[in-house]
């Protein structure tokens, strides 16, 4: 396989823009109509993902180690979408047809062979990772809605029971799919530490124009079913640390931090936890009653409700980084941050400037921006 020739041919094909993935999926669905069901109605985002993944693969095709990690994740990730071993041949077939179509007379047997080899490498890595993953867990979990409670006009708390039991670390997230929005998966943090009965809580905020969030905040009834992907994420408690903990939660970013707080309550000697729960207005502090109950129960927990844009509200006021820095010196703490991307970025920068070591600032870096 000639990596340079491959890159060159890809850069020429990709010039045709959206037509390329459009041709690919149409070709695939005509040759294998049963595959269409594995995709959402609108394919716009899907097409962008395809080109993005192809670009990454082509860029790293001569650096197999880096590429391997990406492909293993991709292969495992595709299990919940319902990808099976036989689909890989179909996809390879349509990919080659697409490349040939757009390459025109630049398509030579040598280039065809390069692409065949490259695709084999990709498909084998993805399938191997998927097979290894199969041994340890299901592709996805069926979950039944046990309760759905509106906490604010735009926030609901969903409680579900997955089948079989889903093991996870407090602070981790799972992708959720609702039958009302088939084939659209969105990541949500689990808002509790593992329970005896295996139930999970999710805090869902309505995002304007969000396809999935509206179905999850307003459209769920007891007994409805959802599908959950495997747990992912690195915002988890550092159990080797003995330092006190600072938590900053913006809106439903509270979910993973509440889970971690519950985990702390089970430790033999809980560290002090200082939790800032932030929202624009007082009614955005949707879970304050339950937090205050926890704070009353645990002497090591301090909850600080913080409101950024509501002059009448009680509690701390001002921008979140200001409120947090004003409240104390956090250089000796472990920090856990979750919420809107900007908030996490700003607080993280301020803490680092104040002397908190970067590796002690724990954040998650996906999910929040997805509608």
């Amino acid at each position: 396989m000639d990596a340079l020739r491959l890159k060159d041919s890809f850069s020429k094909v990709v010039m045709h823009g959206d037509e390329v993935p459009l041709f690919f999926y149409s070709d695939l669905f005509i040759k294998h109509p049963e595959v269409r069901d594995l995709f959402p109605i609108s394919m716009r985002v899907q097409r962008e993902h395809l080109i993005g993944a192809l670009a990454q693969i082509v860029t790293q095709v001569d650096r197999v180690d880096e590429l391997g990690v990406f492909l293993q994740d991709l292969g495992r990730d595709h299990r919940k979408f319902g990808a099976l071993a036989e689909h890989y041949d179909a996809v390879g077939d349509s990919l080659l047809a697409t490349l040939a179509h757009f390459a025109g007379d630049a398509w030579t047997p040598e280039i065809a062979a390069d692409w065949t080899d490259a695709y084999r490498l990709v498909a084998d890595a993805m399938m191997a990772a998927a097979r290894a993953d199969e041994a340890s867990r299901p592709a996805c979990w069926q979950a039944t809605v046990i309760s759905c409670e509106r906490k604010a006009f735009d926030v609901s708390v969903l409680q579900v029971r997955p089948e079989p039991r889903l093991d996870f670390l407090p602070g981790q997230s799972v992708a959720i799919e609702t039958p009302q929005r088939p084939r659209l998966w969105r990541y949500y943090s689990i808002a509790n530490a593992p329970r005896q009965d295996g139930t999970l809580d999710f805090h869902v905020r309505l995002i304007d124009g969000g396809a999935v969030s509206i179905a999850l905040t307003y459209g769920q009834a007891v007994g409805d079913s959802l599908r959950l992907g495997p747990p992912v994420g690195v915002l988890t408690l550092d159990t080797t640390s003995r330092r006190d903990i600072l938590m900053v939660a913006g809106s439903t970013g509270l979910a993973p931090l509440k889970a971690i707080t519950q985990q702390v309550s089970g430790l033999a000697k809980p560290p002090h936890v200082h939790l800032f729960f932030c929202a624009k207005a007082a009614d955005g502090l949707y879970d304050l009653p339950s937090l205050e109950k926890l704070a009353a129960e645990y002497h090591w927990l301090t909850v600080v409700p913080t409101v950024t844009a509501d002059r009448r509200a009680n509690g701390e006021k001002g921008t979140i980084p200001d409120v947090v820095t004003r409240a104390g010196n956090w250089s000796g703490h472990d920090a856990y941050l979750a919420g809107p991307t900007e908030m996490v970025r700003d607080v993280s920068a301020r803490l680092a400037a104040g002397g908190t070591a970067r590796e002690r600032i724990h954040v998650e870096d996906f999910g929040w921006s997805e509608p």
Partner: protein
Amino acid sequence: MTLAWQQDQKRLTPDEVQAATFPLSRLGRRGYDEEHVREFLREVERELVTLLNEKVSLWNEVERLRKRIITGMKQGDAVLFGREDAHVHAVRILSNAQLTADRYVADAQAYSHKLTEEARTRRDEILLEAQQHADMVLEEAQSRARQAALATLNAPGGQSVETDRSALKAELAYLRTFGEVYRTHLRAYTEGMLRSIAEWEHNEAGAIAQATADAGNQFDTGRH
């Protein structure tokens, strides 16, 4: 066959158009509006992509026709519409259908975005208005009650032996006036609410009557 326009020489690509930058003109010298230039470049980029795609379609069409002629000559009768042609047409039809579906979903999403955003803004406005109104009512009740209390305290006959009594009287006057003002506002507010409900019912009845009439008319025209 190598077509002249497929030759492997350096050509301007859509990416290069998109990435093009120009140095700013020196201060005080006239230059083009940057946003206009950007917009034009975006247009050029789109046009280039379209041309590239048309080119590739044409090339494929030529290839197919060429093959058709060759096979046609061999077999003695020309195949007008081969399997390959059918497939490419099917791909084109499905692609167009997919784009239409994408557009419908995007429109619905944009509409829902607009609706929720407006509802949120409206909710905030109503809340703010209500808060301001509540502040005003409270302030007015307090200041008028204070005046009433002062008036009672300063009333003639308030001797030193009666200090306790007159203080109590003053407090009573304060509370009574406070209550009165508050009740007046509450009544006005409730009446306002009732009026808007009545208005709403009236409008709804009117709309239903109108809709029934319209449907009737349509039915009539349908029969003619």
